[in-house]
């Protein structure tokens, strides 16, 4: 799992380092998956049943990371939505999705 997360991070980072805005956003998406999986992994994998009481008598998996991930997913969703619209507007207004052309003049 950790390796998978690492790979997600590597791919995401590569995407972020490219010039196209869309790829950058996709990169952040992939990284976010990586992050969520990482939190889950760090909570300990497959060590129990689903965190629902009354289903079975097994010990439960660590529920806290799941709750954290839920919050993180939602927050990430909010951020991504905003960022998407932002870059969409930026594309419309600036006429490019190439970050290289978004440098801006230093003296502005």
């Amino acid at each position, binding site marked *: 799992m950790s390796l998978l997360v690492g790979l997600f991070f590597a791919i995401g980072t590569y995407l972020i380092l490219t010039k196209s805005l869309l790829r950058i956003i996709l990169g952040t998406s992939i990284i976010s998956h990586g992050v969520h999986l990482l939190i889950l992994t760090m909570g300990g994998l497959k060590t129990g*049943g*689903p965190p*629902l009481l009354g*289903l*079975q008598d097994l010990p439960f998996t660590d529920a806290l990371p799941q709750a954290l991930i839920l919050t993180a997913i939602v927050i990430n969703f909010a951020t991504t939505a905003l960022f998407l619209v932002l870059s969409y507007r930026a594309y419309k207004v600036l006429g490019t999705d190439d970050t290289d052309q978004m440098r801006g003049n230093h003296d502005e």
Partner: protein
Amino acid sequence: MIEIILMLSLGFLALSMMATIFRLVIGPTIPDRVQALDILGINLISAVAILSVLLKTHAFMEVILLIGILSFIGTIAFARFMERGVVIERRRHK
């Protein structure tokens, strides 16, 4: 016994998913991809169902239902998009 069958079907489902993803990736037309996505949804439903049996839990029932709904909405949205070029219309009849 049942477990082995379940495991096997899981494996097949996985293969099916790989195939679907392959279709998703190479396309070549948009309907191809939309189809692939839809199939992926169905595959997911089956996979979750089998997993539930394997894990002996009914905790994932909602998941199954939800996947169904989403895949439904997704298909409609894509259909609409392909027909009109717009997903949500501002006003239909001028």
